[in-house]
């Protein structure tokens, strides 16, 4: 991952000043929200479905060891092989080993967030020609950027930028006129078609893993995952251990949630269920199927106060409905998982000390929780991370002592009334109405005027005065 975790603020500032990015974000924002809202109209019982989704995931997590055993057994009997990876490095190693043993030269990849998480691309690119096949991923691969959204990785790119990238990489020219969307999509189709046909390895993620059949579920709209997993000789799927569901019945419910929440569809154009490698009587399909299951911190989450985050099905609805995400985009979050889910997952996977801004840069407005298909209490988890940061002294000392000092005062009502009364007196004399600048209020007045209190004293002072005069009279 090219992006560093440090300095969230600087990246956010840069994002706010980036006109191209802001234009792209403005375009994307309403689209995702409206599409999801429309898509759930066809399913009036959507709330019950969300509850079902949450129960299915909670249940599977509670019995994860049972289901992993079952999955492995069924995958094996369908001719697939399972590889566990305890951490990111061993995940990369497992994939590289399979590629080397298959004497791979060319690799075609469908989108995998688990792959992004373990830094698979850089490892592969060092040894093999590796091409992303999801159009969005392909665009950012050309731009040498990480994805900025888990569903729409190139959502931050404008058509102008994509034109420039394609002109440079496909035609060796630059500064050409803005190209139309069909033209760009068609060109990518042609370029990538050759890559599909030439690849000896196809790598994908997995949206769900079905225990009682040993099946991998993949959803795409482009059909790239299907070409990636049916043309090459070897298919490698990489996924987190939490992707399990008990059976195809539950997978069907989860797919209804996923499509509506992610892209506002009732179902994606291609929903694919892969069970093992090519059978003897078949004419096509990969000869080998490998599933790499990664832990990378998940088993720890299973046992701590963040277990419910493992319900996440990576739909992206939380970021689509997040006002902070829509102001700064995905890159500002500094790692592969942006938005509210990233504000929880990044500290989990990379360490809270390395991503301390993420749980803080949230207004706790709660909109994400209302759309999350598996009802993850994202604001609760984000706030809980603040407890951890405070306790582990990751929260800056100035903030900690500031809040403790204020709390000390708030526990002493008489003193509090006196101090706030005095402060209010001083403040009310800074000007009339509102001021553009005030001592100690620089962060507020950076973008806002400060409405001043009136000159009659605090409510408590005025109330007590009234009570007294009431009693006197």
């Amino acid at each position: 991952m090219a992006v560093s975790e440090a300095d969230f603020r600087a990246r956010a500032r840069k994002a706010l000043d980036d006109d191209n990015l802001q234009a792209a974000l403005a375009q994307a924002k309403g689209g995702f929200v409206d599409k999801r809202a429309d898509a759930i109209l066809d399913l009036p019982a959507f709330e019950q479905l969300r509850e079902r989704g949450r129960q299915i995931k909670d249940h599977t997590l509670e019995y994860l060891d049972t289901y992993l055993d079952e999955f492995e057994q069924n995958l094996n009997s369908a001719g697939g092989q399972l590889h566990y990876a305890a951490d990111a490095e061993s995940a990369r190693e497992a994939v590289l080993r399979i590629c080397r043993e298959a004497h791979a030269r060319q690799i075609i990849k469908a989108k995998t967030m688990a792959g992004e998480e373990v830094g698979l691309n850089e490892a592969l690119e060092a040894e093999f020609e590796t091409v992303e096949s999801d159009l969005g991923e392909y665009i950012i691969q050309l731009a040498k950027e990480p994805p900025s959204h888990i569903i729409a990785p190139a959502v931050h790119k404008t058509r102008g930028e994509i034109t420039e990238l394609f002109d440079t990489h496909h035609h060796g020219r630059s500064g050409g006129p803005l190209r139309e969307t069909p033209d760009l999509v068609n060109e990518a189709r042609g370029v990538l078609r050759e890559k599909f046909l030439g690849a000896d390895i196809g790598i994908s993620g997995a949206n769900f893993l079905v225990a009682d059949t040993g099946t991998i579920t993949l959803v795409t709209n482009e059909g790239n995952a299907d070409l990636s997993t049916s043309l090459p000789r070897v298919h490698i799927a990489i996924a987190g251990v939490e992707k399990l569901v008990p059976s195809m019945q539950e997978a069907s419910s989860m797919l209804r949630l996923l499509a509506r929440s992610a892209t506002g569809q009732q179902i994606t154009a291609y929903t694919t269920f892969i069970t093992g490698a090519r059978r003897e009587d078949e004419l096509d399909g990969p000869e080998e199927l490998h599933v790499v299951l990664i832990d990378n911190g998940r088993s720890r989450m299973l046992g701590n106060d963040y277990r419910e985050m493992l319900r996440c099905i990576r739909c992206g609805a939380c970021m689509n409905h997040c006002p902070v995400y829509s102001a700064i985009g995905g890159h500002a979050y500094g790692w592969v998982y942006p938005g509210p889910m990233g504000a929880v997952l990044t500290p989990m996977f990379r360490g809270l000390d390395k991503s301390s801004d993420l749980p803080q840069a949230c207004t706790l407005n709660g909109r994400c929780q209302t759309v999350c298909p598996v009802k993850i209490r994202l604001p609760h988890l984000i706030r809980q991370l603040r407890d951890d940061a405070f306790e582990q002294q990751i929260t800056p000392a100035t903030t900690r002592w500031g809040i403790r000092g204020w709390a000390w005062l708030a526990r002493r009502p008489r003193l509090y009334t006196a101090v706030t009364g005095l402060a209010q007196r001083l403040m009310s004399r800074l000007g009339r109405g509102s001021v553009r600048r005030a001592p100690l209020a620089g962060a507020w007045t950076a973008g806002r005027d400060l409405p001043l209190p009136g000159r009659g004293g605090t409510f408590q002072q005025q109330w007590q005065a009234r009570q007294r005069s009431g009693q006197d009279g």
Partner: protein
Amino acid sequence: MTDAASPTPRVGLFVTCLVDFFRPRVGFASVRLLESAGCDVEVPAGQTCCGQPAYNTGDLSDTRDIARRVIEAFAGYDYLVAPSGSCVGQIRQYPTLFDEGSEWRRRADELAGRSYEIMAFINDVLGITPPEQGFTGRVTYHDSCSGLRQLGIREQPRRLLGGNAGLEMVEMDERDTCCGFGGTFCVKYPDISTRMVDQKAESIERTGAETLLGGDLGCLMNIAGRMHRRGQPVKVRHAVEVLAGMADEPAIGEEEQ
């Protein structure tokens, strides 16, 4: 009132620290509104803040201390009522601060069960629509996030304000999007917060409303401050000012007479 034992509900007003400091008239409007709705209103001594700044900074031990004080201060009242969905949302979180089965947990649960945001209280608990206050003009309403999502407050303020025949309510686009206040968020991440409140100001501008009303002073000060900076001449008030017939006084950030 359905509770026959106390025909006149005894209400403890939780003023909130922001109202206490920045806009006392919201407190007086609340008292007037509750009294005219037939309540006995007191302002319990010993209240300061609900503890939300500490809670949202992760300082649980201080939050717990503050919670105990609020629980003590409001013992014995039929209801705790506050002109803020955000503070009531926080008070309803108090039980999570104490161990299950403990005495404080029991008291926190008990307080949470009788704590209400003022407009939800008048509409849902008392079932009253305040009398016409003769307010006229085009108004838009900002739903603060904690009220909206933690307490489900959406229709109540609109229903109560609907008692004013001359008040024309125009809803803004993206009305359930956060204004960027977020308590300490707005000063911790001023750049992001400013962009968010800017978008809110634009939504408000598109309504053509002369007045913005809302139920939480934090959000209202944030939006008022941004609109003032932008030179956007919209009057910003807490909705109880209109409901209590006090909308002729200076709006938030306006010069006092």
